[in-house]
């Protein structure tokens, strides 16, 4: 689908996720790494818990479907080669600190002269201008400033982030892919490239549901409630313990909620424990999100008792049977076994020779009719350096000299 386009990926761990969807749609994505390897390769977990640039599972997961070119862009010769590469490319993604690439003569204002059609995507914590544009940030401090942290966690403890998956960088990077393609559409029609300036803080601030509007319109501040969820003026339970873990169950109200309660009533009857509260309540009365708190509280107690003595899988299967909005709180093992992605052929087996294993990777982000999603393992450091430099017109001797000089 995007086979005609080349992407230069200069990102590190902060932007590695961005070009994923373009690579999946067929673009030729060249990951430019320093000769010592991309910083993403330093992020665990590692295969066998052995830190090594070819054993990072973070890298393996997020750098699929790319080629790797090692190039030291701090070196003049490396910069020259990057400019040559950029001159025929369509996209450039980068996630360095604001001003760094400009200081190397590789900023947007430099590269637009070489290639006016280039879509130059800059992924930074806060955007390229403004009072905080040069401030350091990590995933944790980023989600704090993006507003998601405050609303997540237990009411009596400090708010928490999502562990093991840096949402700040991942969501910012996903947004960058959308921005790049919107700019691409303009380039295709006019030939004009442009700068796409992504703020990860804003990307997180767009994940807050209606909470910003609750403040703007009603001066309500949404707070974290652990297993519960504050929805406007009511509090709804989301998470319940079960016999061997947790399940998530959500009553939305409205016609969907009424159908769900009919299912729960039937489920209780099937199990030989008909429930007077569920059967005796007219669920049609409650609109979406407006069920009275007293009713929600009684439902909470009723469901908690039903779930507590049943197992996660049994509840998940019962929910499908009775069309109840209930799912297990999944861990990695549950997800890999879940029947639905498996039935749809989602998982892609990919051999990873460096760890002598074939692993199941997440398959298509999107399925496009007539397009086969590629499934190529993440590259080794510099795996494609020779072929890419050859295509640029370099001789084997020149390539060898670059390697010897530590440039490639």
């Amino acid at each position, binding site marked *: 689908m995007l086979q005609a386009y080349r992407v230069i990926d200069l990102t590190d761990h902060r932007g590695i996720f961005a070009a994923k969807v373009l690579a999946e749609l067929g673009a030729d994505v060249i990951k430019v790494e320093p000769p010592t390897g991309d910083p993403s390769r330093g992020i665990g*977990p590692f*295969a066998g818990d052995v830190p090594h640039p070819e054993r990072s599972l*973070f890298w*393996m*997961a997020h750098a699929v479907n790319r080629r790797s070119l090692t190039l030291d862009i701090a070196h003049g010769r490396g910069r020259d080669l990057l400019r040559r590469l950029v001159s025929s490319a369509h996209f450039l993604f980068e996630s360095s600190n604001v001003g760094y690439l400009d200081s190397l003569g590789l900023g947007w204002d430099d590269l637009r002269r070489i290639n006016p059609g280039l879509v130059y995507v800059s992924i930074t914590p806060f*955007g390229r*201008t403004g009072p*905080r544009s040069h401030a*350091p940030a*990590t995933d*944790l*401090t*980023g989600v704090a400033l993006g*507003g*998601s942290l*405050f609303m997540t*966690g237990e009411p009596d*403890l*400090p708010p928490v982030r999502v562990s093991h*998956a840096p*949402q700040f960088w991942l969501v910012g990077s996903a947004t960058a892919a*959308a*921005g*790049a393609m*919107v*700019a691409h*559409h*303009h380039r*295709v029609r006019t030939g004009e490239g442009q*700068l*796409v300036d992504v703020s990860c803080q*804003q990307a997180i*601030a*767009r*994940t*807050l*549901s209606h909470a*910003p*509007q*609750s403040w703007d319109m*009603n001066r*309500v501040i949404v707070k*974290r409630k652990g297993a519960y969820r504050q929805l406007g*003026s009511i509090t709804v339970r*989301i*998470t319940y313990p079960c016999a061997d873990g947790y399940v*998530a169950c959500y009553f939305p109200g409205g016609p969907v909620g009424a159908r769900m309660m009919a299912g729960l009533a039937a489920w209780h009857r099937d199990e030989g424990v008909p429930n007077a509260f569920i059967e005796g309540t007219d669920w049609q009365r409650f609109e979406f*999100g*407006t069920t009275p708190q007293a009713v929600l509280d009684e439902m909470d107690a009723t469901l908690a008792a039903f779930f507590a003595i049943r197992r996660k899988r049994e509840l998940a299967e019962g929910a499908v049977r009775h069309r109840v*909005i209930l799912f297990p709180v*999944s861990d*990695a093992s549950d997800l*890999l076994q879940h029947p*639905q992605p498996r039935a*749809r052929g989602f998982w892609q087996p990919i051999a990873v020779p460096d760890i002598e*294993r074939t692993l199941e990777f997440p398959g298509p*982000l*999107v399925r*496009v*009719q007539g397009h086969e999603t590629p499934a190529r393992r993440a590259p080794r450091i510099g795996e494609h350096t020779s072929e890419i430099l050859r295509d640029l017109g370099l001789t084997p001797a020149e390539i060898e000299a670059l390697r010897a000089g530590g440039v490639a």
Partner: protein
Amino acid sequence: MTDAPTHATPDAPGDGHRQALAGLKVLDFCWVVIGPMLTRTLADHGATVIRVESKSRMETLRISQPFAGGVPGVNRSGYFANYNANKLGLALNMANPGAIDIVKRLAQWANVVTENFTPGTMERWGIGHETLLAANPALITFSASMFGDGGPQARQPGYGPVLTSLAGFSHLTGYPWRPPSTPYGAYTDFLLPHFGVAAIIGALDQRRRTGRGTHIELSQLEASLHYLAPALLDYQVNGRILAREANADPGMAPHGVYPCAGDDRWCAIACEDDAQWRALCDLMGKPSLADDPRFVRLTDRKRDEAALDAIVAAWTRDLDAGDVAARCLAAGIAAGVAHTTAGLFDDPQLKHRRHFAWVDHPEIGRHAVDTDAFALALTPARHERPAPLLGQYTRRVCQDVLGLSEEEIDALLAQGVLE
């Protein structure tokens, strides 16, 4: 329909000619969050988006809190208003057989048709993607659903708040000794529209070259798993099931969210290396602590992280959260106040980025819509038109897009096809 004008773009926001997606025509059946958030990005960049709605099958967000002034009403939801700004709306009763013809004619006008119903819904109405693509082979159709089309659970109802648990996020969020927490809202819904936007525009590019449209499908469960892919590999390779670790990080300490002066005020601080820890010790007025053998290197600090966090918390506890963050940043240490939603509106950086745009809505009044995190330097997004009132543009769309006469429209309204 050959008599339908294909150029009509009623009441486009601004002049539209410099926007990246100006001229793109989208027929939008999306509802709730993931779909409307996606099509709002298209609308913000100049596409003409016609939201098809039905009074007999009310869009969930129209009846969702928060309501303007706390007063419920189908045109008063801030949730709906945010995700549907910049769109036109058409009220069409899909249960009425006469609606099919209207949809088919609009699908001739459109370049893109989007929907996120339970799989099978559009087919039941006789307007499934195969039917629409047969009628207009240059069309791009986009479908998103919880579980994707096909498979044993395709039809199971779901909502983002619990899909977030199914997709693995809850298990990774919270305190190890407490039940899982869940990121707020229909969290996974907000992670995925970006991929849909990218794929739709990729398909438009392909169509330009081949003249052929295509169908795009997104499973919310499947696409969400990409965010957690390293944990899925870790289980396969190392046999380990990663779990929630509150705010701990294997590569940084101190790395936490510390209490500050006032009610429920917090500041996140992350020391990325030993030098930053030394700088933090100076800030805390305890320079000798950096040489305390318990805390010199990262491995030392990770060994008794609870004691380390208690020391930092003792320093932050009586300080203003903003002051803590400012002092850390000045010393080169990453830090950030845990913003409440009120704090977001006051954040100088978000103000600089114009993260919240303000539109005037006929019932709600002036209100905030949040904007995409990417700023296009040459073709900026615009936020000029509020979300449509239910049925507000029905007549205009029928006249300008379908070329119907007043009499024809009146007849369709009387028959209950249009609403």
